[in-house]
């Protein structure tokens, strides 16, 4: 029987190696796999490259916690503002930043999961973020070539999961989660509800083929509300 459920966060994170590239879903606090990230921080796995939209906001949890513990070598993201921890490490030259426009980040990840090694986009042409990139004209417009992004591990958050690893989301909680789920060798999902009953096939947003492990985690509503108040 296929059963992707695991009983604990420790089991969910088993086998992640030093130096891994880790995608972390979420847009700000919503859709962020907070429990998985915090558990990863406890494991002390070093030299991580993080792919995420943001660099987090609170030193106590999430990506800043990983950084504060010295576990992160580099972050690939679109909007690293709002995290004091990252700011200090970055200004001290202790962490590398690859700044990517949000849509380019999303498409690079989607291509990573879809077997497309590179694509062209008009985004960033004529800006410093296109420096050193290959430019090419199609039908009279200029584009830059961007490479696909893949990861060793993707940590994502869903609202519901079933034993096959099928996922559905809540509200704006999809954001980067469905595309990151496709782009990693090992994809681990935390979900508020995990069931042996299947999700309605028409309502599945992320098919289980993209998911390796699912762990049930009570969602931290208070943390989400706190993040909104801070926005």
């Amino acid at each position, binding site marked *: 029987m296929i059963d992707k459920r695991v009983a604990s966060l420790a089991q969910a994170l088993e086998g992640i190696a030093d130096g891994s590239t880790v995608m972390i879903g979420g847009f700000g606090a919503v859709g962020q796999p907070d429990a998985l990230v915090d558990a990863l921080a406890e494991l002390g796995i070093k030299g991580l490259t993080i792919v995420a939209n943001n660099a987090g906001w609170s030193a106590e949890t999430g990506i800043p916690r990983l950084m504060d513990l010295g576990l992160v070598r580099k972050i690939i993201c*679109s909007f690293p503002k709002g995290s004091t921890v990252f700011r200090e490490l970055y200004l001290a030259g202790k962490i590398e930043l690859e700044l990517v426009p949000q849509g380019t980040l999303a498409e690079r990840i989607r291509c990573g999961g879809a077997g497309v090694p590179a694509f062209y986009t008009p*985004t960033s042409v004529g*800006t410093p973020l296109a420096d050193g990139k290959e430019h090419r004209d199609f039908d009279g417009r200029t584009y830059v070539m961007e490479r696909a992004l893949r990861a060793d591990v993707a940590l994502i958050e869903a609202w519901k999961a079933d034993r096959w690893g099928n996922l559905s989301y809540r*509200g704006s909680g*999809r954001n*980067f*989660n469905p*595309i990151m789920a496709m782009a990693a060798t090992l994809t681990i999902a935390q979900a508020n509800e995990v069931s042996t009953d299947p999700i309605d096939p028409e309502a599945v947003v992320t098919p289980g083929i993209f998911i390796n492990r699912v762990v049930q985690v009570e969602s931290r*509503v208070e943390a989400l509300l706190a993040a909104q108040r801070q*926005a």
Partner: protein
Amino acid sequence: MNQSVNKTTASQPEAGKVDRDAVARRLARDVEEGWYVNLGVGMPTKVADMIDGDKEVVFHSENGILGMGPGPAPDAIDPWLVNAGKKAVTLLPGSSLFHHGDSFAMIRGGHIDLCVLGAFEVAQNGDLANWTTSSDELLPAVGGAMDLAVGAKRVWVLMQHTAREGEPKLVEKCKYPLTAPGAVDRVYTELGVFEIIDGRFSIIELANGVSFEQVQALTGAPLHGN
């Protein structure tokens, strides 16, 4: 949504006294029914509240929402539903939810009718600078600004006419790093509405009580009649 007053643009040109609501309201008047509209963080978000109640407009949020409504009452917040500024929002009838890949396919693919953005500078050829004020800024962040600027069918900038110290923000050539070249179609400020036509700023209208000379003096590029 139902703003009873329908004033025209505010008339106070001095920095610090700008009636931001009035500028947002003036822009909102030009938004057409049925448009799909993305509002940048900051001053542009005000536009949502200024749309006439009987004009149905669909607001897009790049984190995966079409049909976004106003902020909820404090006791009706859905913690999983935020806009691009990470603030709580609601869903209107006819809304839909999707992931970032699809959201930026909408943006990049030219499906958004209008994007309203703030700016540090707009050049007369439409160049937009709104993401960083220096090429070696200590901590740069870009978000979705570049994608929106190149992808939306129309890019309208909503901003104060001048910067804090009075420096012009409508310029011949941007001095800050670009967000996108030739992207801006129109600029709405407290002094008027300016369209970019053939590489120059054309005045669509001036705010009440504002003269051409006054605006020209506060603008870093030649203004032209329409």
